[in-house]
């Protein structure tokens, strides 16, 4: 089947198998490996991307379901060499260690702020509940998201 999408602003059309997951499309067809796979069961959120501005676990969606959509991955977040404020906040606040959850966590967090620009700490925790991290204990991630929210205010 044909799928036509805009990935990080670049339009493209690919012939894909109907059962191809969006995450495999992004990693193996488009070649953007920043989006990670952590669990295969939609539990960990490492594969979170934006589809038409909404955060989506890209292992829960078929590539063909994204037909006509605008997809943003972690690689598309920075603009003109400048880190996105959320990326900068994660870096500044040591919101990562091994970094495997980071792309998904950053994408989920930017989506959270798009819906709720000034979340409380509790709202950040609730908003990121679907994204697992095994290294940090989350506190620096929460700090980073709150800092990014403050910076965007």
């Amino acid at each position, binding site marked *: 089947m044909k799928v036509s999408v805009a990935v990080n602003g670049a339009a493209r059309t690919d012939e894909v198998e109907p059962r191809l997951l969006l995450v495999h499309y992004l990693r193996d067809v488009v070649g953007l490996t920043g989006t*990670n796979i952590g669990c295969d069961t939609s539990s960990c959120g490492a594969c979170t991307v934006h589809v038409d501005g909404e955060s989506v676990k890209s292992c829960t969606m078929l590539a063909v379901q994204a037909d006509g959509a605008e997809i943003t991955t972690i690689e598309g977040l920075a603009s003109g060499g400048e880190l996105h404020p959320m990326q900068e906040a994660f*870096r500044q606040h040591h919101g990562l260690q091994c*970094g495997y959850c980071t792309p998904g966590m950053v994408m989920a967090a930017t989506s959270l702020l798009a819906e709720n620009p000034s979340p409380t700490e509790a709202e950040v925790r609730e908003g990121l509940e679907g994204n697992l991290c095994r290294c940090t204990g989350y506190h620096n991630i929460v700090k980073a998201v709150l800092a990014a929210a403050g910076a965007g205010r």
Partner: protein
Amino acid sequence: MTTVSAVSSTAVAPARVRSASLGTSRKRPDGGPKVKGEFAFSSDLWAEGALWGKVLRSPHPAARITGIDTSRARNLPGVKAVLVADDVPGNPFFGLEMKDQPVFASDVARYMGEAVAAVAADHPEVARKAAELIEVTYEPIDPLVDPERALDPVTPPMHPMGNTVRHISVRHGDAVASGDVVVEGTYEVGMQDQAFMGPESGLAIPDEDGGVDLFISTQWLHVDRDQVADCLALPPDKVRLHLAGVGGAFGAREDVSLQVHICLLALRTGRPVKMVFSREESFLGHVHRHPARMSYRHEADRDGRIVKIEAKILLDGGAYASSSTAVLANAACFAGGPYLVPNAVIDADVVRTNNPPCGAMRGFGAVQVCHAYEAQMDKLAAALGMDPVELRLRNALQPGDELLTGQALTGAAPVAEVIRRCAEAPLPPGGPADEPGSMTLPGGAGRTADPTRVRRGIGFAVGFKNLMYSEGFDDYSTARCRIEHGIVTVFSAAAEVGQGLVTLVEQIAEDVFGTDKIIVAPADTGVGSAGSTSASRQTWMSGGAVDAACRKARDSLLDLAARRHGTVAAVLEVREGRVVSFDGEIDETIEEATGGAAIEETVEFRHAPTFPLDERGQGDAHVSFAFAAHRAVVDVDLDLGLVKVVEVTTAQDVGRVLNPVQVVGQIEGGIAQGVGLAVMEEILVDQGLVRNASFTDYLIPTALDMPLVQIAALVEEPEPGAPFGAKGVGEPPTISSTAAVAAAVRAASGLALTRVPIRPEHIALAAPRQGEAGS
């Protein structure tokens, strides 16, 4: 000039006054690439023409294999190789401590998930399908799943090397000493998974020289290399390992998982081979934390001083040895806790069973016994009518004290201080949430049967373990420093797994050269072994090696400059990346100072020697220890059995803080894993079958489950012999946090709760019903 020299940490002066780089919260050098999605994890790698590998695993925990027919798999279009045990050219066995695990099971499969065959194909789906087409004829055997039965001499061995992997007897002091107060208990710890986020993956590329380059996420490149080379029948220098981006480790990457298989496939096909585990395969394909059964008897005098500890410790090692012998040594050596135990009778065993193999996980044997001895300390306090913190202070180890292994405690041991600082920290204000719908209620779903039946409890625990390798192991780290064309490059094979060693290496090199223009080369086997990223050892060992190599290279640089200027090195120093003389006459760049020559210094850094335990479990087996105290506050829903861990407070013995934000990161992350073991995490194994090999069924803490962490104190008492005085900080947060949470749940529920993880049914089915007597 190139030299290799040996440096021992005993020669290093402790705790120098540090520069502008050490002690600061420098940002990780890999932070930028990681937030941009540009950091290449092992799963991201690709090579032109690469094939996909897939391993076929035994569905049975115990079965004889009477036939393997690979013909249908081989005939599938796109399949390039199907390998079984007969295809292993070298040693058919591998293992960290004893080579007891087959590369492929051939006559018998000993655990669910054991590798039987491997496939390489031109597409991952073809590889998967081919693996399914391999016809293995199994004759299932009654699995040996009870470690007590494994220990029984009448039980037939499930492995040619026998069921008992190791037994340790500790006989310390007077075996018949007795105290006024006696408490006994039996405790259990379930099987925890490291659950790193990035499943196992790697890329093997065959070389024209008959060797192979393996890009792999691991904790120890050289020990992988040696095992792979042995199985491949290649000289070690033909097996070149390169560290690929590691998505967390926590002990699970210390053993070989796919390394041998993927190299075999690459050499057989002559093509690069990539393999990536699914999460299910990751659960089945790496070792876990040893489940433990422990029975304890503490005797104390009326003042609460421990007189004697008797303990029996049984660890289930699963099908193969992995690092079981060293895990057991830790369990035995630290069985008494960080207390003065004048008399001890301890018998510890680790056995093989048909359960999943167990090995290294953060805390490594010290976690299991801490759960038991700290529950015992609370029991003892109750029996004495004494405050549990006071009891711990009264027994706290002090420098000079003898451990129950007879070893004198020579290093920094601020045990009483970590206890006191942790206990003195303020408690969180208020009590359990009383608003219906509050996500901070136990269970995190905003629901409770009866808000008045939510109880708050507080628990306290202290733990300790060894830093670095023990029992006479030749533990060293190699580092190289090269100065060429004015550029300083540091080489180390130490595995960065997320903990932040890469930051520290930069900080250390900058401290020596006074410039941040330092290149840290990618980790590979082109330099000597750095040892494992485990046992909280890399800050000390590879930090020490990098420091020593950089200092040696700097000294050579000064010698070179002095000769060129016809003076002596003593009047020169390296300052802000320049070579300058004290009188200011000489002031030149490093490049000018070398005069076109290249300097290269390689150092093997060793800690002070350790010694084996004797037949009575006595000996100077360890080089250094780290201590931590934890206080947990929990809310427990007595009806639903759900637990909310509200806060964990800690004070930790760190020696010296080299990067504050990284130390705190290790502590918070370690506590998350300790909380997980206390109330959430267990691999459920039923008759040898793993029942929850996924993140939908094996739950780890989320951002909502994670308690507040209050760091009451980072106790900085520099460790003699440690470079910079710094102790490793990764493991202590995971040792006593579990015990503290369990104690808090006991306090809230009034239940004995001797097993972790504590599951809802342990509380809900045991607590008195609403309206019944009791609190």
